[in-house]
């Protein structure tokens, strides 16, 4: 199976793997669900921008400003191409979190049919990351709209049996994750998108855990908005994406006000530029946009389908291994169906924090706790899980060390 990806070659592009962890151990990084590592190509792209093209975009007519604008707009084109969108539908934000907050606030400010107001309904799910829950919770509180949600089944899927009661004619917006960041489960969104559109509601897809890991095409999905973060997709920190259908973005009110997003300004009144500029106030995160473009180049060269296949292969090995360790319980989907390369588990009698601490001693980086999805964790009757998430730079030996470290954690406390 090593033929799917040449992981040894890939690892060489990521300088982080060339250092030793505690006790001289090599790094087994299994926390890409939180943030990914960065290849040298991404660092070089940022450095190159600063060294040769750096100037404020859209604001100067000198050579560097021209080049900076070209680099920044080129990055926009690159992102658009990556998800099957059009360039002017891509808004650069600082993170998926900002993208979602932008949407929630803009839908409050925009008058007309898009506006969320008293009595309207907003729908999310119990799978959601806090970033795709609290902005909607607060939107509901500010406006008097009602927040509703799909419940989660034990296996991490969504319970769609009451879909007709959940998505009604009062529904204005439905915001659901493409994949759970805790369990790796992939909810069946097609019927939800159809139900949302049937009642004229907007569908927002949280692609944080999918866009970096598999081919995602906004046309094929038939969603209205998609958000994701650059830092989980080999890109720099400080860059996120909001994609929205042009006819929607062009009607929507801004989120941040300031330079570069205006048409005219007087002391008392201002009017706005066209989207996407309308949503990009101030000197933007230029170098980060360019770095993200380089990251997407990297992902495309390796191939998103192959990455997905490889992650599932590693997940399969890990799932099998975990089931052989006494006291370990995999949380959420037990097999490969409807899941991505993320595994949550518990060890009987042990707290995730303690498990993670022992695993760290093996050089294994995993995430412990509620993973910013506290309602999901509560629903499962847990206080937290230990989570491993795979990416293109992980290989089978990483899975071996991972399994060894899980057994090690159990033994460390069990034997004392």
């Amino acid at each position, binding site marked *: 199976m090593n033929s799917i990806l040449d992981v040894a070659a890939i690892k060489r592009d990521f300088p982080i793997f060339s250092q030793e962890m505690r006790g001289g151990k090599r790094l087994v990084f299994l926390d890409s669900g939180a943030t990914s590592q960065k290849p040298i190509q991404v660092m070089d792209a940022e450095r190159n921008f600063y060294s040769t093209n750096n100037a404020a975009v859209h604001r*100067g007519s000198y050579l560097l*400003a021209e080049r900076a*604008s070209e680099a920044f707009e080129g990055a926009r084109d690159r992102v658009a191409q990556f998800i099957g969108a059009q360039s002017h539908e891509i808004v650069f934000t600082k993170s998926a979190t900002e993208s979602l907050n932008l949407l929630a606030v803009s839908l409050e400010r925009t008058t007309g049919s898009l506006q969320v107001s008293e009595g309207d309904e907003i729908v999310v799910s119990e799978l959601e990351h806090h970033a795709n829950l609290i902005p909607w919770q607060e939107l509901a509180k500010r406006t008097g709209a009602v927040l509703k949600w799909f419940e989660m089944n034990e296996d991490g899927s969504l319970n769609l049996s009451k879909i007709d009661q959940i998505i009604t004619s009062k529904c204005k917006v439905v915001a659901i994750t493409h994949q759970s960041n805790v369990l790796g489960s992939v909810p069946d969104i097609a019927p939800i998108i159809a139900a949302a559109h049937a009642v004229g509601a907007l569908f927002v897809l949280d692609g944080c855990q999918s866009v970096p890991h598999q081919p995602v095409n906004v046309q094929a999905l038939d969603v209205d908005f998609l958000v994701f973060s650059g830092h989980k997709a080999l890109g720099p920190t400080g860059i996120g994406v909001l994609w929205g259908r042009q006819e929607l973005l062009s009607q929507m009110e801004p989120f941040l006000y300031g330079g570069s997003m205006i*048409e005219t300004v007087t002391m008392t009144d201002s009017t706005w530029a066209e989207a996407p500029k309308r949503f990009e106030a101030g000197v933007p995160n230029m170098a980060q946009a360019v770095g993200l473009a380089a990251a997407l180049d990297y992902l495309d060269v390796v191939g998103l389908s192959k990455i997905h296949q490889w992650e599932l292969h590693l997940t399969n090995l890990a799932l099998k291994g975990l089931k052989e360790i006494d006291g370990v319980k995999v949380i959420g989907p037990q097999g490969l169906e409807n899941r991505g390369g993320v595994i949550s588990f518990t060890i009987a009698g042990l707290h995730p924090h303690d498990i993670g601490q022992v695993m760290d001693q093996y050089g294994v980086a995993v995430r412990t706790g509620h993973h910013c999805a506290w309602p999901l964790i509560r629903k499962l009757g847990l206080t937290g899980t230990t989570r491993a998430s795979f990416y293109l730079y992980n290989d089978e030996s990483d899975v071996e060390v991972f399994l060894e470290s899980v057994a090690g954690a159990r033994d460390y406390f069990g034997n004392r």
Partner: protein
Amino acid sequence: MELDSLYQEVILDHYKKPHHKGLPVGELQVHHVNPNCGDEITLSLAIKNGKVEDLIWDGVGCSISQASASIMSDLVSGKSVESARVVLQEFTELMQSKGTISGDEEILEDAIALAGVSKFPARVKCALLSWMAFKDAAIQNGAEL
């Protein structure tokens, strides 16, 4: 000097003595701004018997934007909507070409002098401002552009 390819004689002539510039009068006036630099244009026209008539514009802006407005108004005034559409399309393509095409002089006439602008991306909007105002006004007057 590379600059001379941008600031051709024709451009400076139009800049100094712009054509069709005055107080826009028609009922339908459009107002466009370039928010990057604050340049503005107001433009009015009429579509009579399928022809562009009474085009008049006023505005503030750099030599490129002013010359472009002057040249544009010469070019489309009195023309059929269909011919204006052809000119508009040819000019837009030229501007967005980043210097890769030189434009059809038959169609563009004086506007060919603006070809150099396409190599200065920050100035393309200056050159296009009046053309977009024209397009907008013509559409509002019922023309299919």
